[in-house]
C-alpha cells in the first residue's frame, strides 16, 4: 500500500525543458500562473493554449502522464464550476426550482474550469521535468535575496533535500513496523475511518521515535563532516545559466507581454 506513493513525479527524459536551469522553470511557471488570470477573451485563451501545448510538446512528456495529475482535482473543479454556474447573477438562460443559470454564469464556469486545468497542467509540467533536488537548488539560489531579510534560505533548502532523502527510508520503516504489528494481531484494515485512524497511533509512536533517532544521528554525521550552515560553503554542482536559459527567459517574457497587450487592447 505504501509503496505506491511516488514523490516528486519526475518523468526522466532528455528534452530541452528537462535541461533548463531550474530557476528559469520556477520563474516561467510563476509568470505562466499569473498570466492565466489576466485574459478575459478568446484571443488570450488561444495564446495560453498554444503556449502550453508547445511546452508539453517540447518536454516530450506523454500527454496521458500529464492528465493523471488532473484526476486529483476533478472534485475541486466540479465544485468551482457549479458554484460559478448557479450563483452568478446576470441574464437568465434556464430556470428550474431554485436554480438559475445565467449567461455570465456559464461563461465564468467555463473560464474558471479552463484556468484550473491549465494551472495544474502547467505546474505539473514543471515538477515532471525537474528533479526534486534541482528544484530545491533552484529555490535556494532564486530566493537567495531573502537572506538579507534574515530568512534562512540555505537551511530551508537543506531541510527540504534531507526530507526528500529520508522519505523512502521512513516509508520502508513504516511498512516494517506495520508488518511487525500485524504479526502480533494489529488490525489496520477494518472499521470506519475513526477506527482506522485510531489503529494508526501505535504505528506513529515508534515511527516518530525512530525518526528522531535518525535525525540525531544525521546531525552528528553532518557536524563530523564540518557542516556549519551555508556560510563559506561551495557547491559541487553550482547553477550556471546557459544560452538556452536566456532564450527560455525570452520566450516566457514575450508570452507574458503578449497576454498583457491582449488584455489592454482587445
Amino acid at each position, binding site marked *: 500500500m505504501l509503496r505506491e506513493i511516488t514523490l516528486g513525479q519526475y518523468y526522466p527524459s532528455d528534452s530541452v525543458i528537462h535541461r533548463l536551469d531550474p530557476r528559469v522553470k520556477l520563474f516561467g511557471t510563476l509568470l505562466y500562473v499569473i498570466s492565466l488570470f489576466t485574459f478575459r477573451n478568446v484571443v488570450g485563451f488561444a495564446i495560453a493554449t498554444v503556449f502550453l501545448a508547445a511546452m508539453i510538446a517540447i518536454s516530450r512528456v506523454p500527454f496521458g502522464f500529464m492528465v493523471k495529475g488532473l484526476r486529483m482535482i476533478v472534485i475541486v473543479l466540479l465544485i468551482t464550476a457549479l458554484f460559478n454556474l448557479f450563483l452568478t447573477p446576470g441574464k437568465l438562460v434556464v430556470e428550474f426550482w431554485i436554480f438559475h443559470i445565467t449567461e455570465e454564469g456559464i461563461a465564468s464556469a467555463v473560464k474558471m474550469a479552463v484556468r484550473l486545468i491549465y494551472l495544474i497542467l502547467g505546474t505539473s509540467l514543471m515538477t515532471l521535468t525537474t528533479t526534486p533536488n534541482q528544484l530545491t537548488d533552484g529555490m535556494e539560489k532564486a530566493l537567495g535575496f531573502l537572506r538579507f531579510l534574515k530568512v534562512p534560505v540555505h537551511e530551508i533548502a537543506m531541510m527540504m533535500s534531507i526530507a526528500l532523502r529520508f522519505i523512502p527510508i521512513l516509508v520502508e520503516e513504516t511498512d516494517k513496523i506495520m508488518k511487525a504489528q500485524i504479526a502480533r494481531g494489529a488490525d489496520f484494515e477494518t472499521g470506519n475511518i475513526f477506527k482506522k485512524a485510531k489503529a494508526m497511533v501505535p504505528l506513529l509512536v515508534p515511527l516518530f521515535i525512530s525518526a528522531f533517532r535518525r535525525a540525531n544521528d544525521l546531525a552528528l554525521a553532518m557536524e563530523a563532516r*564540518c557542516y556549519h550552515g551555508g556560510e563559506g560553503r561551495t557547491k559541487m554542482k553550482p547553477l550556471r545559466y546557459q544560452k538556452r536559459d536566456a532564450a527560455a527567459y525570452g520566450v516566457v517574457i514575450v508570452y507574458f507581454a503578449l497576454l498583457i497587450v491582449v488584455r489592454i487592447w482587445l
Partner: protein
Amino acid sequence: MKFIEARKLVHEYIRRDEEGNVESIQTALDQVDLEIEEGEFVAVLGHNGSGKSTFAKHLNVLLSPTEGSLWVDGKDVNDADKLWEIRKTAGMVFQNPDNQIVASVVEEDVGFGPENIGVPTREIWERVDQSLRDVGMTEYRSHSPNKLSGGQKQRVAIAGVMAMEPRCIILDEPTAMLDPHGRREVLEAARRLNQEKGVTLIWITHYMEEVVHADRVYVMDSGSVVLKGTPREIFSQVDTLKKYRLDVPQMTLLAHELRQAGVGIPAGILTRQELVEALCRSGLEERGGGGYAGVGRE
C-alpha cells in the same frame, strides 16, 4: 608528540533532573592514556558500554573531555578555535549507514564534505572522482544511496570522509549493522586506504575477527584501557579477553583449546593459515608428517 595522544582523559555523562540538580553521573571514560602514530591501523575493542564510542567521538570533537587532554595532530581538542581543523584532520564514519548519508545521489553525498569546507567546484569533482575510485564505488556514482547494500553505503560514507582529505579516519563500529560479506567489503576498503594512502585508521569494533590485521589493539572495559599490544599479544590472552566479555576469533579459540589439550602449538594464533602451519609443524615433530589430513578445510 604523537599524532594522537590522550592523557588522563575523563568523560562523564551527567544526568540532571528538571531543576538542574545532578541525578547521576556515569563515567564513560576513566583516565584513558593512549597514543597513536600517524599511518597506523589501530583497533579499539570493547563490548557495549565499554566507552569505545565515547572515545571515538572525542577524536572528532563531537564530545569534549570532562577532564584531561587529548591532542589530534598536535591540536588540543579543548581549544574551540581548532574545532574545524580537527574535524578536517580526523574524519568519522558511523555505525548506521542510512543515517550518515545526506544527499540523494552517491556523488553528491561524497561532495558534501568538501562543499562544507569551501573547496572550489573543480577540485570537488577531482576529489569526488578520486575518493569513489579509492573505495571502488565509481560505477555507482549516479545511483540513489537507497538502492545500495549496507556494505556499499558504508564505502560511500568512507569516500565521503576521504574527499575531505583527512589524515586519519575513525570508524565507529562501521560493520555492526552489516552482513559478513558487507563487513569484509568495508574492512578491505579501509585497509587499502591505510596501506596505499597511509591514512591512519582507528577501527572501533567488538568483532574480534576484524582486528587481526591491525598494527595495534587497545582493549577497553568500563571506560579504561585494560590491554594494549599487537593482535598476537592480545589474542594469546584468551582467558583475560573472556573476562572482558570479548569473543576471541574462532581460529584463535580453536588453537587455544588444542593447546590446552596438550597439542604443541604456540599461543596467539590468528588465522586459519597460521593454525594449519603450526599444526603441521607440531605434527611433523610428533609423528613425522602424519598430522596434515583434514586440517585446512572448512
